[in-house]
């Protein structure tokens, strides 16, 4: 007799994504969908899609979703959660969105201890606009706006947002994960699930999971090489593990 051992989870829509080959967004979306189904919270979950490649996340995640201005998801999430404490609010943000233009919003949502779950996808580059430097771009990394590679003197060092947010009393759980291997993907899922569970329990504060994610297109690498670079180089500047909680 045949037995199904792996299938699409209901909250993940049955459609192809617009993401490039080897992109991490598809994996991250699937993890979120699985967690929403496992926790059985689809009927009370509201997601926030960012400006960036994941702006169309609502085309793939079958939950109520909103798409908001660049960097503002934590403020929008604040408005939602404060007026709907029974709902599960998550924001899904890239590094340009969260660490650059929305730095004030994430800092203050964390500072106020908003009871929201933040999924922070860090791929060290602006994807949607054509591979420009992000605050998280690595030193010497060549991007459209750092043609000679990022220089510490001219463009500053890669910004470690998770470390920064972990210092705030208002954050309760911060963990950095990566999508560079099956084991790491499983660990990422565990972390994101924990972040959702904290909100479900009504834990007082913000939880965030930073997910190091590959962007082969703008790293100018094959998907396989991108995974290797993520594992071998990115994790050195962005060490994996639980920073808080």
């Amino acid at each position, binding site marked *: 007799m045949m037995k199904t051992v792996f299938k699409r989870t209901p909250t993940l829509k049955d459609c192809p994504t617009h993401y490039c080959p080897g992109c991490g967004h598809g994996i991250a979306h699937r993890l979120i969908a699985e967690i929403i189904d496992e926790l059985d919270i689809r*009927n009370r979950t509201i997601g926030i899609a960012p400006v960036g490649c994941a702006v169309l996340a609502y085309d793939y995640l079958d939950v109520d979703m909103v798409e908001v201005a660049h960097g503002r998801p934590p403020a929008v999430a604040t408005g939602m959660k404060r007026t709907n404490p029974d709902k599960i609010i998550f924001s899904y943000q890239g590094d340009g969105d969260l660490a650059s233009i929305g730095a004030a919003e994430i800092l203050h949502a964390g500072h106020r201890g908003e009871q929201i779950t933040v999924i922070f996808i860090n791929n060290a580059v602006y994807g949607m606009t054509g591979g420009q430097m992000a605050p998280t771009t690595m030193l010497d990394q060549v991007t459209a706006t750092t043609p000679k590679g990022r220089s510490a003197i001219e463009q500053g060092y890669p910004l470690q947002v998770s470390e920064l947010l972990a210092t705030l009393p208002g954050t309760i759980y911060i963990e950095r994960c990566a999508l560079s291997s099956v084991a790491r993907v499983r660990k990422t899922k565990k972390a994101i699930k924990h972040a959702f569970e904290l909100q479900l329990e009504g834990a007082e504060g913000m939880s965030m999971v930073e997910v190091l994610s590959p962007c082969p297109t703008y790293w100018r690498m094959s998907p396989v090489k991108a995974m290797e670079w993520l594992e071998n180089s990115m994790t050195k500047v962005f060490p994996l593990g639980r920073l808080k909680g």
Partner: protein
Amino acid sequence: MCGNEALAESAIIAGCDAYFGYPITPQNEVPAYMARRMPEEGRIFVQSESELAAINMVFGASATGKRAMTSSSSPGISLMQEGISYLSGAELPAVVVNVMRGGPGLGNIAPSQSDYFQATRGGGHGDYRTIVLGPSSVQELVDCMPLAFDLADQYRMTVMVLADGILGQMMEPIVLEKKQGRKLPPKDWALTGAGCRKQNIVRSLWLPEGSLEELNNKLLNKYKQVEKNEVLCEEYEVEDADIVVVAYGVAARIVRGAVSRAREEGIKAGWIRPITLWPFPFEQISRAADEFRIFLVVEMSNGQMVEDVRLAVTGKAPVMFYGRPGGGVPTVDEILDQIRQLTLRPKT
């Protein structure tokens, strides 16, 4: 109770579920009042880290179907323009109060009417409109709040209440009462969690060819409905007037005094006071211009609404302007002098 506090209490009576705001003079009494009163009512008050965050908190609360508002003054309203554009694209209701002060830049904290362009033309990007109410007394400011929430919910638009530093700070006797609101459509678009129903999406991005044009045209039709149904305007002794003074807000009150004095002197003067600044009372002003008479527009700015009056008059009559920018407030005597000069009456 000053105007700022009165508008805040009126918003609470009107069923405002959440207030988000950032301190700025001359509207600081609004967040201070809300900080005390909203929790008493079991509702939400959050002091945001910026006006940018405040308008996005309004966006978030509104997307879930709640009645949400913010208030600020000119420089803060500039920061909110991004959010207002997104609210407009996503067709979310919102109420924004602008207690105007002098500008540009940091300007000053004196009362002004220099944000008329920004308010009525849409200071943010894209093809959109906001409904703008221009009250001229504390009572009217109070009455504007339930109307603003109803209009916002009915048309799924941002409604801006355009007050100024005088109205915000002024104390006048007022009546605060709960009135029967409009019959409003259900918020079946709101994000409440996709349980048995299909997923709801609140968005302003429309990439496929033609899809944004479709949205823009849908918005246009909505705006046409607002223009048809929601114009509010007051006029006084226009019929036999040789000169009609057009002003809104606090300036209109000063004009009222000047026009009464002119009548006492035998000058046939009248006034028109737009209450909705968008939709603007084009028809009412155009009708008044069918008979030849002089129009004088008075503003606490160097001339912004005067452009709409000229559009309404379409060259049928001369449109003159008198304004005091940068916190200057025109006096009854100043306006009366203008009326005398324009009607060729010698100074008495």
